[in-house]
């Protein structure tokens, strides 16, 4: 015995509705809701028959269609007596039209995909092994950074001697590393060199100092900045790192 399964697959309830509207050649602005609803439900029936799991979105749409159908049967009477003249189909139609816009584009994209898949490209040459990039840390190692961080923290605690003992409150994180990365890169856009100390203002909270420091470490990890100490115990200077073409 052979089964002839002829059941189109639809991306979602809108996709199916569209198919039905097109198949029946009806006006999208004047959908014969009873007829379309019946066909829609029939399709879900078929899906069940073929043991295809019906996604919940299809069921929600079925309910919506039935609701619209019933509202169309009843004369709408507002509480204040005026007749409501909004078509119960309106919202559905608006969404269908919105969906249709992108459906057309989807087909266009498919065509272009087929065409441009035939273009091939080179892998980048492994120039990294021939070219020396600017180093990231110059005359400096991680302990120097730690020292610099310590001194900032010391300045902070001498300004605000807040460590009074047991009382502690946990505040919501208000400054993110991302914010501080933006802050540092922004300053580097306008200043060629930025002093490490100058990243921390006097009024900063401990949290803000820590986050700024983390942001700087992150930028080092991403190889976007370089950190230099020109003489021992000197100021630590942050600069943008020159990168290869295309690096962002």
């Amino acid at each position, binding site marked *: 015995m052979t089964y002839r399964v002829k059941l189109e697959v639809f991306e979602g309830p809108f996709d199916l509705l569209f198919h039905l509207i097109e198949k029946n050649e009806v006006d999208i602005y004047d959908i014969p809701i009873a007829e379309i609803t019946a066909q829609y439900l029939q399709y879900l029936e078929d899906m069940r028959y073929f043991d295809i799991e019906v996604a919940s979105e299809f069921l929600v749409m079925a309910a919506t269609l039935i609701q619209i159908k019933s509202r169309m049967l009843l004369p709408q009477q507002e509480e204040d007596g005026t007749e409501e003249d*909004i078509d119960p189909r309106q919202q559905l139609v608006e969404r269908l039209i919105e969906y249709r816009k992108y459906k057309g584009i989807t087909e266009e994209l498919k065509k272009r995909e087929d065409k441009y898949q035939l273009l091939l490209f080179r892998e980048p040459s492994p120039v990294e092994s021939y070219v020396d990039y600017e180093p990231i840390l110059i005359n400096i190692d991680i302990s120097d950074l730690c020292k610099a961080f310590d001194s900032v923290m010391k300045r902070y605690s001498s300004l605000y001697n807040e460590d009074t003992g047991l009382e502690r409150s946990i505040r919501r994180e208000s400054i993110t590393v991302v914010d501080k990365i933006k802050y540092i890169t922004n300053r580097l856009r306008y200043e060629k060199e930025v002093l490490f100390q100058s990243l921390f203002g006097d009024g900063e909270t401990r949290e803000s100092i820590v986050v700024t420091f983390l942001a700087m470490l992150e930028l080092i990890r991403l190889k976007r900045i370089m950190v230099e100490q020109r003489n021992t115990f000197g100021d630590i200077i942050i600069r943008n790192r020159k990168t290869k073409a295309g690096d962002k």
Partner: protein
Amino acid sequence: MDKKEFKGIIEALLFVSGDPVSIRDLAGALEIEQKEVMEIIREMKDQYNFERRGIQIIEVDGHFQLATRPEHFEFIQRLYSPQRKQGLSQAALETLAIIAYKQPITRAEIDTIRGVQSDKALYTLSERKLIQEVDRLDTVGRPILYGTTIEFLRYFGFKSIDDLPQLLEEQITYLDENTR
């Protein structure tokens, strides 16, 4: 340096890079104006086309890249039998179309337009670097805002985002008809 020399250098830079190179980087390497680079590349493109060379220069969002020609794919296939990449699924294409026109957009907004969940499609599109997280919406849960990438433009052969086909806008909307 004469123009011929510049052409040679640009060719070398594009060859080595493989990836698209920005006009800014090219101008920087050659130490000439971007306008001049544009002019030279335009000439190179014409030349390549006229001589029916096996490579062409394609433009993506102010970046240039060397590529083979579609009509040669057949031969490349004979030599290497490269597997044609699996095209994107209908769901992925649909999701991508929505993102392309409505970016930046959240997953919830995409789901509303499509009427189905799009997380799987979004995952595939991110994997293939056709979309990226561009920002987060400043609201409960800070949902991700998605946008398309340069790879998206290249993949579909668009020069820039303005190159996207026009959406078929309905002149007479349902609303107009109703209020008339």
